[in-house]
């Protein structure tokens, strides 16, 4: 008898056995049902958290590099101290880089500070003021909603013009169009030439719409003479991102006079780092959550094991008969394993049916749906639980001596 035949035969037998003990089977499945419901909900919530994060992170653009003295994520305080001692990146270095780099689409220096912004009698106390060049609009994952971005001539001329975020526009100009109006930023006056479209906030931390963007030349003149500049670069193509990084690294090392064999005194950051860090932390949360919910499945599994022991005991004679007429150990083992797996599979499907409406509730808070992989996971986990918890009872059945089993009444 092949394994496949044994499973098929086992399925037929277990269906008959389950039908014969409806109430008992139903009660036994309860533990597994609850376990599967919690596991499914937990997995759905984790997935929802993931996609919420991804939606947030997409504002960074996957083909964008962020170069700074500091790496976004430091593994230790010592590493942070080392980065702290690195020399600033200067505007001249950025200029040289933009001359020499070939595998890039756009490049801008980047610096920001927080200043109050006033129009007539209305004031926003703390606004992010960004200094950059005209290419910024091609790098940030954002577009101009109204008016225009400042142009190359205004950037190189250091003109007092700005593009404002949609938040500033609605706060300071509730009724009129801000284009052409002059606002006071810190102690200087700049003219609004355009409004960016709404972007929302970044990981719930700060608003990307509460910004005033000015030409870097004007920024250094009016707000910060020397600052710790960053470089934002959009690479020529996503496929070549590694080549671009290598090229930029080589040029920067040369410009910043890093001797061979000494590590970089700058860091090339990208969206991926956020994702991998999130994945690491998210992974820990997910495994802890799934472990805790897994405990309820474990309890359910013990219930299954218990009931399978009862089932084996009360069918001792049947086992004896089957063995007498030629059932091998494996055949009996498979029969009871199939039965345990069948109970758990049924419980798993029932659990999914209960979990589905509950995921719709979660959906109110997170972009979560009961996805196919989660359904697969739930089915797989329930089958696995069945096989594991059914094994010991099935093994006992398989090892029974036919003479003793037949004598049992």
């Amino acid at each position: 008898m092949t394994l496949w035949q044994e499973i098929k035969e086992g399925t037929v037998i277990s269906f008959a056995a389950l039908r014969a003990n409806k109430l008992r089977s139903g009660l036994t499945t309860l533990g597994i049902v609850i376990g599967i419901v919690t596991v499914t909900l937990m997995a759905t919530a984790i997935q929802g958290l993931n996609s919420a994060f991804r939606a947030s992170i997409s504002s960074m653009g996957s083909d964008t590099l962020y170069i700074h003295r500091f790496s976004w994520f430091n593994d230790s305080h010592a590493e942070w101290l080392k980065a702290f001692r690195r020399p600033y990146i200067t505007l001249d270095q950025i200029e040289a880089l933009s001359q020499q780099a070939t595998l890039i689409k756009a490049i801008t220096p980047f610096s920001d500070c927080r200043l109050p912004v006033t129009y007539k009698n209305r004031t926003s106390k703390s606004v992010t003021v960004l200094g950059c060049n005209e290419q910024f609009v091609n790098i940030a994952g954002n577009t101009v909603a109204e008016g225009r971005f400042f142009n190359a001539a205004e950037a190189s001329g250091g003109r007092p013009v700005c593009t404002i975020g949609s938040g500033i526009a609605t706060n300071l100009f509730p009724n009129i169009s801000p284009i052409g109006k002059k606002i006071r930023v810190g102690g200087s006056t700049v003219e609004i030439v355009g409004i960016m479209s709404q972007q929302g906030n970044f990981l719930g931390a700060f608003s990307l719409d509460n910004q005033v963007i000015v030409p870097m030349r004007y920024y250094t003149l009016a707000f910060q003479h020397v600052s710790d500049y960053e470089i934002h670069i959009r690479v020529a193509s996503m496929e070549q991102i590694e080549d671009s990084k290598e090229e930029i690294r080589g040029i920067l090392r040369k410009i910043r006079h890093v001797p061979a064999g000494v590590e970089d005194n700058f860091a090339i950051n990208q969206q991926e780092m956020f994702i991998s860090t999130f994945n690491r932390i998210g992974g820990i949360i997910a495994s802890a959550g799934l472990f805790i919910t897994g405990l309820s499945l474990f309890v359910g599994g013990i219930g299954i094991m218990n009931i399978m022991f009862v089932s084996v005991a009360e069918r001792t004679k049947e086992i004896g008969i089957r063995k007498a007429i030629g059932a091998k150990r494996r055949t009996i083992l498979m029969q009871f394993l199939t039965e345990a797996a069948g109970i758990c599979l049924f419980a798993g499907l029932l659990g999914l049916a209960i979990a589905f409406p509950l995921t719709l509730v979660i959906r109110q808070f997170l972009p979560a749906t009961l996805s196919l992989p989660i359904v697969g996971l739930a089915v797989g986990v329930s089958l696995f639980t069945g096989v594991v918890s059914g094994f010991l009872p099935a093994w006992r059945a398989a090892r029974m001596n036919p003479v003793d089993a037949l004598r049992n009444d």
Partner: protein
Amino acid sequence: MALIQLTKISRRYVMGSETIHALREVDVSISRGEYVAIMGPSGSGKSTLMNLLGCLDTPSSGEFLLNGSNVSHMDDNQLAELRNREIGFVFQSFHLLPRSDALHNVELPLIYSGMTPSLRRQRALDVLAHVGLGDRVHHKPNEMSGGQRQRVAIARALVNNPSILLADEPTGNLDSRTGDEIMVLFEELWRKGNTIILVTHEEVVARHARRIIRLRDGLIASDEPSPGASALQAVEHP
């Protein structure tokens, strides 16, 4: 060569500190086509002998050759395969699967031997018709009389064309009329060439066999042709 050859077979059971000698160096030889009854009071070792002959158990010492293969040292799975192929069991209390219909009960040995569904179904139906239950194939055991149940059990025993039909008190749970019918069926099967071993403590039943082996205290007390066989034969088949 004998179909069954037992040489100095012993079977001991250890019960706590005591060792029970159920069989003591028994020699038995049974040829193909024989109709043998094994008799003896309880405790004589007859059940032990039946378990050994049915390959449900292995001897503590001695050699058991069945159809040329040595059973004495086989493991669980080899014994299961051997039982499936060589032995057809008929038990006193029928031992049918209560939730399965007659057809499925009879099919079971064929399922374990790995026969394809269509073939085994046909074979099971044929054998059921042969024992006179062609119109009862979808009845479950509790929907049948004792005699019918025993016929299902006999059909199940025959379905794999075993070398030996091993019947343990086959009429023990039947009234005498039904019991007689079952014995007539055995007689018929024997005449068709089946080897039958009957384990019983009833003299009347044993007389249907052509040879009677009597056990006492784990030893063979006598082994001789059945006294009633010729007389019975004269009555039933004049």
